[in-house]
């Protein structure tokens, strides 16, 4: 039971809005101590785990080139291109990205997206640009809502697309785990049974996206009434 202290620290820390790096470090050290490690052993275990997880940070390598292109006006260009398409609305831009992202992820092309390389420089400016094209300068609140939706589309389409591809990490993990327990399953079977949920995810989230345009319109009307 004592080993649950880390979970408690994380929950309390996030609620009190203490710097998450500090919260997570303290939770990690406390969990290790509760699990019976000595102080130096805990620090070593934490250091080792941090070093072996470095691959998570490799995505930051895209920042120099993205920054360079942003400096040269990439986001502004993405807005202009969308602005020329009369039919483009925020909902439609995000729906199109959702479909492309989910289908390509299902084909194993999970790297055709991502927050640093696609959402920030291209998708979010396009979704904002479509709304600006219709309503002019957007209120901050609406701008932030559109950006958060752009990030959510990338996540949801990826999560519920990638599991249809047979060589993805989660399928390999399931297969390995069941093998250890004496149950042999085919990756293709696992992939097939991910399809019903993938369809549900598409229907549910795209339905919500269809209402986004209306929400943006209402927010702008509200703003206009106030002023």
């Amino acid at each position: 039971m004592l080993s649950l202290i880390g979970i408690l620290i994380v929950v309390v820390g996030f609620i009190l809005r203490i710097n998450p790096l500090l919260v997570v470090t303290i939770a990690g050290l406390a969990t290790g101590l509760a699990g019976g490690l000595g102080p130096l052993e805990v620090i070593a275990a934490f250091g080792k785990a941090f070093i072996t997880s470095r691959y998570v940070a490799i995505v930051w390598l895209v920042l120099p080139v993205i920054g360079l292109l942003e400096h040269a006006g990439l986001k502004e260009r993405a807005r202009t291109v969308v602005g020329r398409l009369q039919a483009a609305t925020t909902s439609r831009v995000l729906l199109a990205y959702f479909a492309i992202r989910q289908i390509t992820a299902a084909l194993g092309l999970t790297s055709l997206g991502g927050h640093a390389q696609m959402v920030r420089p291209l998708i979010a400016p396009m979704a904002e640009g479509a709304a600006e094209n219709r309503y002019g300068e957007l209120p901050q609140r609406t701008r932030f809502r559109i950006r958060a939706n752009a990030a959510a589309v990338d996540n949801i389409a990826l999560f519920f697309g990638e599991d249809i591809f047979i060589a993805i990490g989660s399928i390999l993990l399931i297969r390995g785990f069941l093998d250890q327990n004496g149950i042999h399953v085919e990756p293709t079977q696992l992939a097939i049974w991910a399809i019903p949920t993938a369809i549900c995810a598409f229907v549910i989230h795209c339905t919500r996206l269809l209402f986004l345009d209306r929400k943006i319109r209402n927010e702008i009307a509200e703003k206009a009434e106030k002023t």
Partner: protein
Amino acid sequence: MITLEHIYWLTGLMMAGVSIVNWRDRSNPRRLNNTAFWGIYAVTFLAGTYLPDVVSGFLVIGMVLVASIRGLGQGRGESATREEREASAIRWGNKLFIPALAIPILTVLGTVLFKKITIGGSALVDVKQVTVISLAIATLIALTIGLVMLRAPLSAPIREARRLLDAVGWAAVLPQMLAALGALFAIAGVGNVVSGLAQRWIPLDHPSAVIATYAIGMAVFTMIMGNAFAAFPVMTAGIGLPLIVQKFGGDPTIMSAIGMLSGFCGTLMTPMAANFNIVPTALLELPDENAVIKVQIPTALVLLAANILLMNFLVFRR
């Protein structure tokens, strides 16, 4: 052979560059904090493989202290005004998309091609890490295209990287920190304690109740751990296999596939999945760090309910 280690060196060099740019930037009131933070981070990339674990541990604690005591600052924001960027956008037009789209396209090409290229019998790149290495190489090529096309000075990319990385701030390191926390949870056996609690307190004598417990348990445990991969073995060994499969005769394939996806619903709702939920709020400069989670929660909850229904319908049919 190109391995992950080489990519770490490259990342380390970038972090070191970011640290140096910060050191020289007097517009940032906390420039020394930023210099130390990214500097130590650079060391973990350049030397992490060779350092004793304890030393790495103290380096990480050092970074955390620098980031949480007085915190990190930011230099003067954008390097170009909006007007300058708009003028530049008109000048370059759609050519600007070439390097940006080269990154994902070359990454995908790399993942396919590098597996096939061998030199003198050994693979050109470490096949197990092919996606990450392809991403890094694609980025380098895209950067070269960008530099040549825009005729930008060589120092520009690192200055721009500094601007973006400082905008993200400590959140850039959070995903890695959470992965480390997950490892400590595993060492301390947190998973077994949680599944033990679930088995003791939840009525598990009806198939539908078991399925709901399993799916919701996957989501909740994923929210705690920040990762469905950590939750899956624990919940499946604790509830899925003994009850759904062995006691009630459910299909393990269908149960596992939908169980994992129930975990993904949890991923959408937790700040612990920082690289998906917290990092984008920093990247998109949103003031509310839970903004992305708030958008995702309705979809995640409806989809979790859909998963429970699907598992009820599908898992006992054979």
